[in-house]
């Protein structure tokens, strides 16, 4: 059984329902990221798990025990706030020591544990500073140390890196991942940044309108999105309706045959999708597999390559092509869809 299990959770604010029949399960030692557009309920979900609010319906179990109504201070979960939420009137040392003090540990043990944790997050020598005397990145590490030092059974991060610059962000996310693997804690991580989320997690859960649409390993999500929403999220821009004619062979509604390399779908009518970079553009009439003809509508210079918007019978395609290829607006072209890059969605 999974370590953390949310089932049938309904949650929201007053009459405003945000999560509806929400399910999530996290295995011990796993690093799970929650990804989703702004306002989809990621923070709501984390706060619920942490016990900052209670669900209107549904249950939460942790390590086999019912945790739905356990008060927050009895959960032993760590939480790294987006705002860090450091105690401004306490020094770095006292901030980190706070959780241990609440656990009534003796002074000497507290001192040892705190100093060790400050060393881990590379903040030795800062213990007598106040939070306002630290930089954003340093504060973030204090917040991290404060959450880690209590050896939480589960650690939650709510966009902990969003206030940092790009360089520090990369450094810190490597750090977080390293600590997680070293200390072996279970983590749920909320972020807006797709790259960050793929780089750091064992599993990624993508949320849409208060439910998780797909939860899988990063490569699975990237290479095999299960819904159109997920596919769009991970960079698929071209969608077209298909009708099955056999194993790995399909036909568009205009009768063009499309072959795929793998067939992981079941339905008779389904959707195909492909990323802009996996479509080859050729002059009209070229003899290519999975060929579709269309007319160039817009051509945009994007530095590395050009982006073309091509109108076809089965909808508009966004494709990217080499700088060396020049297709003026209005020209008829042939698009070839790479058979091993087409993803099928039931």
């Amino acid at each position, binding site marked *: 059984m999974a370590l953390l299990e949310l089932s049938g959770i309904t949650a929201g604010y007053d009459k405003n329902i945000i999560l509806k029949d929400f399910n999530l399960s996290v295995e011990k030692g796993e690093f799970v990221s929650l990804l989703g557009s702004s306002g989809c309920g990621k923070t709501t979900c984390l*706060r619920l798990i*942490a*016990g*900052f609010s209670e669900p209107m319906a549904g249950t939460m179990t942790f390590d086999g025990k019912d945790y739905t109504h356990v*008060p*927050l*201070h*009895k*959960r*032993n*979960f*760590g*939480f790294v*706030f987006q*705002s860090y*939420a450091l*105690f*401004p*009137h306490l020094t770095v040392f006292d901030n980190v020591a*706070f*959780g241990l003090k*609440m*656990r009534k540990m003796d002074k000497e043990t507290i001192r040892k544990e705190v100093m060790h944790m400050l060393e881990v997050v590379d903040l030795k020598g800062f213990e007598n500073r*106040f939070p*306002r005397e630290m930089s954003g990145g340093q504060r973030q590490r204090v917040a991290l140390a*404060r959450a880690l030092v*209590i050896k939480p059974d589960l650690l939650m991060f709510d966009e902990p890196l969003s206030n940092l610059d790009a360089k520090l962000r990369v450094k810190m996310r490597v750090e977080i991942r390293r600590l997680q693997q070293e200390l072996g804690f279970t983590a749920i991580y909320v972020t807006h940044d797709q790259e960050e989320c793929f780089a750091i997690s064992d599993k990624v859960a993508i949320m849409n309108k208060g439910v998780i649409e797909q939860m899988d390993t990063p490569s699975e999500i990237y290479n095999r999105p299960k819904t159109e929403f997920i596919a769009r999220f991970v960079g698929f821009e071209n969608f077209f309706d298909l009708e099955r004619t056999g194993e790995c062979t399909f036909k568009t509604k205009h009768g063009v045959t499309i072959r795929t390399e793998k067939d992981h779908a079941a339905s008779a009518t389904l959707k195909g999708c492909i990323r802009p970079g996996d479509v080859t553009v050729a002059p009209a009439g070229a003899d290519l597999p999975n060929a579709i003809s269309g007319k160039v509508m817009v051509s945009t210079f994007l530095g590395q390559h050009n982006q073309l918007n091509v109108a076809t019978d089965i909808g508009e395609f966004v494709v990217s092509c080499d700088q060396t290829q020049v297709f003026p607006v209005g020209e008829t072209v042939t698009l070839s869809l790479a058979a091993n890059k087409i993803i099928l969605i039931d």
Partner: protein
Amino acid sequence: MSRKKNLLGMLLVVPGVLFVVFFMLVPLFSLCLTSFFPQQSFSFSSYWGLFKDVYFQQVFMRSMRLSLLSTFVCALLGFPTAYYISKHSKHKGMMMAFAVFPMFTSPVIRSFSWMVILGKRGIVNNFLVAIGLFAKPQSLLYNEFSMTVGFVQLFLPQMILSLIGVMDNIPDDLTLAAGNLGAGRLRSFFEVVFPLSVSGLVTGSVLVFTGCMTAYTTPQLLGGADTRVLSTMVYQYAMSLRDWTQASVVAVVMIVVTMLVSSVFNTVSKKVNPIA
């Protein structure tokens, strides 16, 4: 450009500065002068004379006692109220309006209403007699009790407002963080909310204490002949006895004491919250 701005800034400040200098600093200075020149030459004699006066000592102690007690009661009543309004109230605006509503009536009116409430035929006495606590009405007026009640009611809004001001600036995430780290409700209140509210408590206390020390109507109307305080004493010296030197000596003592007590409050708050 920046010079022009500086000039403009200075011009804007001038009226305020002039006002403060002429209507506050100059009178204050002349007050001090008066108190040190009982006759033509400089001397501490008026001070020594006053300090040795048993009557003054009594009045001084009473003023201190009443002001400190009222401040303490205001803090005790104001803290939970402010905490509730700032952190747990759904109708914050309305609650604030209720809290500050007494400020819209004059201290005179308020003192008179206490005279009605606490009088021999007032509701408090009627109630106490009705439940059989006392056989006949007690005298609740014109003593230190009625003065404290009056002070507390007069200055509680100041305390509440100062506290709400700082409590509103304590992010809810901090209490959640404390809870998340294992602090129960009470513990997180005393470890986080309280220390972070101390600056408001100090501001409120200074306001209440100063207010109590200097209030005139309330002690005059709710106190009696044998419960004189420093402010009524000043009035007595200046207006009844026409002894301006003595009046200014008492006034200077009041100023110094108020400043001393305020700085004690501030020192205590620094101990609780070093960054405040």
